[in-house]
């Protein structure tokens, strides 16, 4: 962009720290405006004499910039870098201008100046706090169709993004000895002291430059320098030390248990062309041994009629605009204060050539020196006066001033008002740490009281006002923190010399004169949520006596600024209305985040490929190559079916099932959980974990096992192989792998610690290829060495070790299809090569690969259950027809007692049976419900449900399994499955649909 011509009406030559040599341009509501490097959007707007920047939430009142920091309630803009990088509700006072930035005002239509929503301001008497609870109830139907859509449309500020966020966010876990929150004079002093004493220090500040109040307070001299320069030097000194990490633009947003503090660093949002590799923001998750809280304090506004008019700002903010950004907030600036600090702002403005028509001070006797100085500068001081109302609409134009104790009003024309009701210590982080605040009655403020964690507050946030006292306190805290963490390092003390910075006296919380009870004016407490002093009083009047009720009824403090300006005022007004003292009423709870933080930054890397791991088996790529379609099972991708030549799932599954039963099929079973159970007591241990008996299982033999929880419900199942006397290879379901191992470890470590057994997960050590079907042996035989595959040597449910394709294998003769079959375990890195080799052979024999869907069908044809499908957490082994797997003679196993509870042995339990569709063609829907009488009225008595259901190509009919009340006794009974548009007749049968005798297993 070409260097713009700088015509900025409010930029004061020679003031501020920005350089005219760094011009930039940005747009506001489409209009291009000049700015300087280092400007915030707010300072640049004010430089261009723009105060009107938005509309309020409820009444759509015109609103301007109130502050120069994160406490800003009004100046929220939409910021757009490009189409996909639109962000709503950005505080203009925090967002730095970069060349080309686009800003848009919010919550107005059709334009900022002429906003239809303004009608709400006119009818505002109707829209008092909580009005919606009292109305919109008739007619009943109108709520859904008229009232609620109306309320919703009126609410909300900016517009949510509509594009996927293209930005990166990064995260970082970090540890340190001392974490310092805030880089004002207190934070910097503490950091210097801690760092000099050898501590690992992190200091962060949410602003682009350190210094805090030194940005505006030019009266301060530290170590012979003006305060701001000192801060920059201190920060440079810290940054150069190896044991210190200095973080600017970094907000501490959350203080969690055990000194775990979350910080967000804004990395690139101030750059005009950030590198694509640079994250937009970075989340720091810091664990500190000691935290020093040095978050300063926040100036309060004055609560008077129309105090929300654009052009009315906090006094110290006006001073920041002048002294840091070189921008005057107006040409003719009125001052309204209850506190000394506004005087300095007035003096600075006056000295910069701005007209100050009057300082209105509600105090009768403010500091005489300040008054004298004002007079010396030719500023009129009205003590004991208040601003009864502000005039103007889109911009403040006058202030109506009157004595506090009553008297004539004088209307003073101005184009801006700066105000100060005193300072609120920022106890947010302290409170988040679960510390309890204490009330400082002398100064009407809450300060840190009882600490709950290893932290300490210093400076203005601790209620310390005097500069020298702040520095002393901070140095002490820094030194003590360092020696607390590192008691053995020798102590270095530092000294910092300061001049200026006396305590500012005076405070006003609650409504200012003219807005007291009974006055029907709009004196805003919470700007963004349009909460006025009278709303707070109304809440109390209606019985909302707890401050928490007041908050929720009025929404005071619930806006994006979370009450940084409003909470104390709200509290004071409520307390007055209740006739109670402030601490009796108390504050609402401080919660994270301190200021709103981007979802993306909390997500950081956990998105897209890193949202969750995607687990693939060793054979995955080979399966992709032969056209597999995958399904998600937990984090796994499992081959679901292998369509050929345009087949749909149904056709593919029919072919796969048929081929496997008549010829051979191969299946990737690698995702099954595997646990190696080793040790002299291994058999004993499994005997306790499984319902089945395990002591007598021979070496080289397999056994199907069921596992319950103590409550007797099926938890998992799998096949257990005895590799050696003291070594078992246990399999679990895919999803069950981690929890089964965890449960076994639990019993082993805590209930049976006397047993010498060790558990190792081998789920991923072994790739598993199931080869099933009448030709399975012929297929694998040529590749196997060292194992006799004959039915005699390796019968069903046995295993042997040897090699396949030259690689070691645990070869198991087992079957989940009902066919003769083998499960070939090979070390995972060989899985793909073995799969490829076998697949070639299978293909040559006109066999096929089959996926999980066919696996489900094939096992259902045999009535084998799938835990989690045919059982849920309410099914016992007996219900599932697996009574035979429960060791009757065992004196103990997990679940033995639970199984005997009355309801688990009662009659009428749902039992797993087969179902045939009587029409011979209707495939039931899984999950469909079963009734005895399809003609009964709703609610119907359901007696069971369909857990598995498929078309069986092998049986040439639909097959299903279902859990039905008393099912074992209902064989042959006709039941009904009512669907949305039809009723399907079914008959209960045994859950075996192919090879009922089971001969095929043994080929």
């Amino acid at each position, binding site marked *: 962009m070409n260097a713009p011509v700088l015509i900025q009406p409010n930029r004061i030559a020679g003031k501020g720290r920005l350089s005219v040599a760094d011009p930039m341009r940005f747009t506001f509501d489409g209009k291009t405006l000049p700015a300087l490097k280092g400007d915030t959007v707010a300072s640049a707007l004010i430089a261009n004499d723009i105060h009107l920047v938005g509309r309020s939430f409820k009444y759509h009142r015109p609103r301007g910039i109130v502050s120069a920091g994160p406490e800003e309630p009004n100046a929220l803009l939409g910021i757009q870098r490009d189409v996909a990088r639109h962000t709503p509700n950005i505080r203009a006072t925090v967002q730095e201008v970069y060349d080309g930035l686009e800003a848009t005002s919010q919550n107005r239509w059709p334009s900022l100046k002429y906003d239809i929503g303004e009608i709400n301001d006119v009818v505002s008497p109707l829209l008092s706090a909580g009005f919606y609870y009292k109305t919109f109830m008739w007619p009943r139907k109108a709520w859904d169709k008229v009232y609620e859509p109306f309320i919703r449309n009126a609410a909300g500020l900016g517009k949510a993004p509509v594009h996927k966020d293209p930005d990166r966010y990064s995260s970082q*876990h970090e540890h340190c000895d001392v974490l310092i929150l805030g880089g004002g004079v207190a934070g910097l002093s503490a950091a210097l002291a801690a760092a000099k004493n050898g501590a690992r220090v992190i200091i962060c500040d949410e602003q682009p430059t350190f210094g805090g109040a030194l940005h505006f307070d030019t009266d301060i001299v530290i170590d012979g320098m003006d305060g701001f320069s000192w801060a920059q030097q201190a920060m440079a000194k810290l940054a150069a030390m190896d044991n210190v990490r200095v973080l600017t633009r970094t907000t501490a947003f959350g203080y*969690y*248990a*055990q000194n*775990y503090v979350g910080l967000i660093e804004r990395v690139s949002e101030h750059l005009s062309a950030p590198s694509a590799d640079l994250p937009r923001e970075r989340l720091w*998750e810091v*664990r500190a041994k*000691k935290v020093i809280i040095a978050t300063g304090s926040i100036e309060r506004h004055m609560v008077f009629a129309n105090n929300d008019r654009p052009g009315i700002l906090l006094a110290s903010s006006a001073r920041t605009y002048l002294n840091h950004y070189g921008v005057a907030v107006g040409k003719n600036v009125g001052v309204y204060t209850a506190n000394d600090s506004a005087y300095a702002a007035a003096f600075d403005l006056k000295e910069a050539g701005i007209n100050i028509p009057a300082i209105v001070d509600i105090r009768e006797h403010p500091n005489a020196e300040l008054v004298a100085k004002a007079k010396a500068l030719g500023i009129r001081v009205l003590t004991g006066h208040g601003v009864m109302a502000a005039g103007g609409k889109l911009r403040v134009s006058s202030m109506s001033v009157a004595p506090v104790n009553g008297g004539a009003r004088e209307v003073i024309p101005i184009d801006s008002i700066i105000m100060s009701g005193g300072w609120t210590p920022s106890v947010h982080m302290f409170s988040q740490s*679960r510390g309890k605040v204490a009330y400082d009655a002398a100064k009407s403020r809450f300060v840190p009281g009882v*600490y*709950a*964690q*290893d*932290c*300490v507050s210093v400076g203005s946030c601790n209620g310390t006002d005097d500069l020298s006292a702040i520095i002393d306190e901070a140095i002490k805290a820094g030194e003590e923190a360092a020696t*607390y963490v590192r008691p053995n390092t020798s102590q270095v003390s530092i000294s910092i010399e300061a001049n200026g910075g006396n305590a500012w006296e005076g405070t006003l919380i609650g409504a200012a004169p003219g807005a007291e009870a009974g006055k029907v004016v709009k004196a805003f407490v919470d700007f963004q949520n349009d909460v006025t002093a009278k709303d707070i009083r109304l809440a109390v009047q209606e019985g909302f006596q707890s401050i928490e009720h007041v908050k929720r009824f009025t929404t005071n403090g619930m806006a994006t600024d979370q009450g940084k300006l409003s909470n104390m005022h709200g509290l004071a007004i409520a307390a007055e209305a209740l006739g109670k003292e402030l601490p009796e009423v108390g504050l609402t709870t401080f919660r994270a985040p301190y200021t709103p933080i981007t979802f993306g930054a909390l997500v950081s890397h956990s998105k897209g490929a890193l949202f969750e791991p995607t687990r693939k088996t060793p054979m995955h790529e080979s399966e992709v190559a032969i056209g597999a379609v995958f399904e998600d099972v937990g984090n796994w991708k499992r081959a679901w079916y292998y369509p050929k030549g345009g087949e749909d799932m149904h056709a593919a599954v029919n072919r796969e099932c048929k081929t496997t039963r008549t010829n051979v099929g191969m299946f990737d079973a690698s995702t099954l959980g595997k646990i190696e159970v080793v040790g002299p007591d291994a058999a004993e241990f499994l005997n306790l974990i499984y319902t089945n008996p395990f002591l007598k299982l021979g070496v080289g033999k397999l056994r199907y096992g069921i596992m319950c929880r*103590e*409550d007797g419900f099926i938890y998992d199942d799998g096949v257990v192989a005895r590799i050696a006397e003291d070594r078992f290879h246990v399999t679990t379901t895919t999803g069950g792998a981690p929890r089964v191992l*965890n449960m076994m*470890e*639990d019993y082993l*470590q*805590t*209930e049976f*610690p006397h047993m010498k057994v060790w558990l190792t997960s081998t789920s991923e050590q072994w790739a598993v290829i199931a080869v099933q079907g009448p030709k399975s042996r012929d297929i694998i035989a040529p590749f196997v060495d060292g194992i006799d595959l004959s039915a005699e040597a390796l019968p069903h449910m046995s295993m042997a070790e040897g090699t396949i394709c030259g690689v070691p294998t645990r070869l198991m003769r087992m079957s989940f299809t009902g066919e003769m079959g083998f499960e070939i375990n090979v070390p995972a890195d060989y899985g793909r090569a073995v799969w490829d080799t076998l697949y070639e052979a299978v293909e040559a024999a006109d066999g096929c690969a089959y996926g999980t869907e066919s696996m489900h069908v094939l096992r259902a044809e045999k009535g084998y259950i799938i835990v989690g499908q045919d059982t849920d957490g309410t099914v016992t082994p007996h219900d599932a027809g697996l009574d035979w797997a429960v060791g009757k003679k065992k*004196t*103990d196993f997990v679940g*033995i*007692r*639970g199984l005997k*509870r*009355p309801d688990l042995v009662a009659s009428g339990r749902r039992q797993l049976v087969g179902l045939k569709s009587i029409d011979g063609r209707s495939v039931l829907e899984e999950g469909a419900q079963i009734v005895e009488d399809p003609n009964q009225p709703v609610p119907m008595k359901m007696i069971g449900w369909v857990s598995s259901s498929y078309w069986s190509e092998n049986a040439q009919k639909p097959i299903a399994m279902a859990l039905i009340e008393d099912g074992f006794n209902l064989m042959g009974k006709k039941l009904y499955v009512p669907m949305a548009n039809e009723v399907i007749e079914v008959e209960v049968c045994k859950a075996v649909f192919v090879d009922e005798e089971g001969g095929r297993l043994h080929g």
Partner: protein
Amino acid sequence: MLLIHCPYCAEERPETEFAHAGEAHIERSTEMNALTDEGFSKFFFYRDNTKGTTFERWRHIHGCGRYFNAARDTVSDKFLTTYKAGEPKPDLSKLVDDQTNAGAKS
């Protein structure tokens, strides 16, 4: 995220390395079969759910893998101590004193 001292690793580690495993010192009977229905129910379902100092189990599942016990205040979420599985309940009165002293430090 809590910071938990693993008695086996002898170090404080972040909570995400651990899995909470319910109330501690609930022993499984060696005579499960002899339990009454009520006895079983107490063992399996009923919990003290203490407001205040609770004894609970954790597993350093993404660390050393060990189960161990902790005494923790469920109001402040602060740990009083952690100890190895199988060790007896520590003497609480002493622990509370230690905490107060430790607290006084800050």
